[in-house]
């Protein structure tokens, strides 16, 4: 299906244009980044409406990329840029937009470099949207690497200053990963020319070239997932970020790798590096168990959320390796709920930490006094651990059953890690609900009515996604 209007280009361009507007926005002691914040919110809402519109004209049953937009980008080398979406990628785009919107609700009163934060957030959003709508090898690589700069800047500015060497490593590892993907892209181009992602999956790359191309693709995506040996620096960066929006954006990074695996995972992929996939599975499961246990014993609430996120991302990765098309769609639906849940949890957690630092007291028992916060936090924790209140429930059940049937021993370890990750979140919830007289946080420290209404809206989205994943789509 070809679109008559360049809607896909528009959803990539709109955040970029928003960024240019933010750049020109006034930012001084009087305005305090409010203009930049408003422009950012407006841009994201406008883009969400556009995405909704695209859902309307999309054939949700089709597995092929739709609304294709193609234009010749370069003559030397001859490269065509092709954009296209399917339900899966569009769902992820919507999830990312909602996650950023939720993240923005957490930085509404931020005063530190608010304008820079908005600029790089919109740039990131533009690049990540481009990544999800990329339908050919070059645009896919282009956006895969391009999103590194806003990420690097956000982490650098809003991560802990002491960990600056870690930022270097973060950038360089990811840059190396991107360069490895670049070399694979160039090899594919050299053999087949500028081709679409769907054609890549049918490429008869065998022998050494097949091994190198698929190995490089695999390695470049793995470099973005907190799986051993890449887990250390990602975890250090995540636990060092105190800005909720920055944390949400950083937590979206493994999503790009998960999506990359789904787009690139053809049958040839398995045949070329099939012997190594089992090792990735083993390393993945060990990392899951390891990080889940560390999260459980760690007292830092940020790290707890990070460990939960990591465990789930690795589960999705292992689900992809089953190479089952139905499971891939389950992963998409589950990811939609998962991203919204982790963003909300992070924003609430960030709020609690901020209050802790402001009043200089422990947050133990805070939820007993802050009813609105308690309601939302409890709901999100229960949704996160897999109770039937969001799309995570059914779809994770299907993914798990598939993984268990594929390999019972590994599946059991995986379930163990998931239980520990869930317990980690419950442990934090219990701590916050354990009424402690020494806690100096009171009812007045509860979230504002505006935030509460917004969070109720988020809860509504989650609940509806449990009833029907694509409930908001009204087909024309």
């Amino acid at each position: 299906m070809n679109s008559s209007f360049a809607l896909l280009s528009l959803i990539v361009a709109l955040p970029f244009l928003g960024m240019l507007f933010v750049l020109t926005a006034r930012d001084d002691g009087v305005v305090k980044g409010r203009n930049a914040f408003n422009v950012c919110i407006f841009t994201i809402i406008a883009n969400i409406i556009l995405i909704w519109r695209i859902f309307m004209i999309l054939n949700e049953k089709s597995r092929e990329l739709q609304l294709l937009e193609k234009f010749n980008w370069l003559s030397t080398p001859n490269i065509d840029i092709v954009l296209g979406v399917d339900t899966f990628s569009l769902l992820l785009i919507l999830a990312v937009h909602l996650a950023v919107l939720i993240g923005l609700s957490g930085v509404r009163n931020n005063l530190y470099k608010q304008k820079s934060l908005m600029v790089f957030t919109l740039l990131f959003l533009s690049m990540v949207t481009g990544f999800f709508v990329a339908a050919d090898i070059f645009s896919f690589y282009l956006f895969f690497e391009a999103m590194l700069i806003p990420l690097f800047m956000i982490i650098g500015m809003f991560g802990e200053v002491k960990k600056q060497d870690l930022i270097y490593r973060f950038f360089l590892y990811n840059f190396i990963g991107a360069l490895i993907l670049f070399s694979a892209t160039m090899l594919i181009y050299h053999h087949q020319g500028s081709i679409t992602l769907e054609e890549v999956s049918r490429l008869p790359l065998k022998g050494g070239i097949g091994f190198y191309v698929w190995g490089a693709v695999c390695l470049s995506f793995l470099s973005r997932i907190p799986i051993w040996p890449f887990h250390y620096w990602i975890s250090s960066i995540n636990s060092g970020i105190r800005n909720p929006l920055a944390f949400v954006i950083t937590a979206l990074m493994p999503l790009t790798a998960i999506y990359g695996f789904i787009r690139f995972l053809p049958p040839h992929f398995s045949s070329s590096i099939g012997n190594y996939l089992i090792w990735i599975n083993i390393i993945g499961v060990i990392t899951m168990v390891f990080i889940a246990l560390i999260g459980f014993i760690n007292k830092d609430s940020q790290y707890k959320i990070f460990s939960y996120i990591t465990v789930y991302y690795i589960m999705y990765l292992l689900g992809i390796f089953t190479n089952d098309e139905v499971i891939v769609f389950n992963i998409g639906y589950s990811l939609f709920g998962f991203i919204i849940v982790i963003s909300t949890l992070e924003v609430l957690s960030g709020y609690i930490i901020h209050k802790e630092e402001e009043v200089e007291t422990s947050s133990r028992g805070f939820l007993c006094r802050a009813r609105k916060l308690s309601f939302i936090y409890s709901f999100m924790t229960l949704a996160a651990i897999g109770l039937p209140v969001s799309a995570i429930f059914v779809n994770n059940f299907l993914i798990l059953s598939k993984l268990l049937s594929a390999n019972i021993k590994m599946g059991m370890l995986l379930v163990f890690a998931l239980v520990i990750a869930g317990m980690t979140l419950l442990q934090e919830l219990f701590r916050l609900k354990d009424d402690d007289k020494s806690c100096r946080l009171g009812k007045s420290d509860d979230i504002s009515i505006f935030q509460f209404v917004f969070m109720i809206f988020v809860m509504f989205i989650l609940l509806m996604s449990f009833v029907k994943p694509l409930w908001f789509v009204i087909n024309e």
Partner: protein
Amino acid sequence: MLQNWLILLPELTLLSFLPVAWLVNLYRESKTAKTFFTLSKYFLGAALIFTIVFYNKSVWSAWWLNSRYSTLFKVAVYTVALVWFYFASKWFLSKNRSSAKFYCICMGMLLSFGILLSAQNFLVPALLVPVLCLLTRGLIPLHCDEEKAEAITSVYIRESFIFWLLLWGGISILWWQTGSLEYADIRYIFALEGEVNWIAYSGAVMIVSSLLFMMAAAPFHLWFVNALSLAILPVCGFLTLIPPFVYLSCLITLMTGVFAPLSQSLQTLLFCFAVFSLFVGAVSANRQNNIRRLFGFSTTYNLGFMLLGILAFHSHSVVSAFVYTIIYVLAMIGIYAVFLGLKSKGDYVSELEDLSGLSEAKPYLSAAFLVFMISLIGIPPLLGFWGRLSLINTLVSEERWSDVLMLMIALILMANAYLQIIRKIYFEPLQHSFDRTDKPIYVCLFINLVLILISILNPSYLLHDAEIVLRGLTQ
């Protein structure tokens, strides 16, 4: 007769600038730095127009020949020089120093470059290269610390003297072996002989080596880096932005024209220089605290990158190298423009430490700096990615996998050096106060940024005609 003089108008215009500037300097009382910029603007603009008008007309075609190819490079050189002269005038106005000598020397160099670009006989470079070296020697110590300048320029003159001797030696050998100094004759004789003897080969090596010295390829790069660390900003910018086009063009002319029968053997030599430049530039840039030295090494690295890509000297590699050079120069113009906007208590910033927290004091300059550096690393979606893509695509199409690997390792090293600057600007607290930046600098930066940001949407329009010209040269 009159027609011949008309054809020589580009060169005559540049030449006539010198006496006019001398007279103005001598007799005009109310002269400022802007006076000489205005003069040079008109003369250079006229020379640019005449170059385009007489793009295929030549007077002494056996000595120098105007063609579409030489015109392409001349237009690039004159345009970049025109832009840089404008920026340079800001420096002279701000410091309230005389700009007469700077503009005169630069116009002299541009005249020499223009003739060198059209050269068809080895006597032309034999005469012009020493002139260029002397002019460079005059340019480096302009308005800077005399003691340090003396030390650096004396080393430069000694080194360049050795390379003049090499150049003259190489040319003499070629004359001895072929009996001619004309490019076309020498190529014809080499092609006729089939196998070229080692004496002629060593002559070619000597000529190419002296060219590499002028280009500041490693290990002959130190004069360039030292000059950048010492010289004033207008000189640094001129030495960084203009010569790459000229020497790239000379290299292409020699390798595709005169030394085409020797290209296989000379490729090995160029390969060694390219790899050495690539790694010396990238590794050394990581160890610099002076930003100008850092960008000096970055130039050496970029030269290595470009040389590695152009080695095969076929149409694809020549176009890729040209694209890479254009994009590199665009980014470097921006970086030097940012330097011109960065003053702390009247002094231009030169140390890496001075950039700490720049984003707080100068957010727009910092953003521009960030964009230019990302473009230099070659990260999409900026124009620099196109340069990287073109060159690496050339290597992949030639199946030079080990070269691709080397480029990527060097690229990572170089990216690390740029990250140090980004870290200082964005992640560290403000340590200095910065002076107000002129509005025209912002305007120029904006235009440059638009070029870098918008051109990536459809890069072909930028260089469509250039590609046709360059393909024609190598076919």
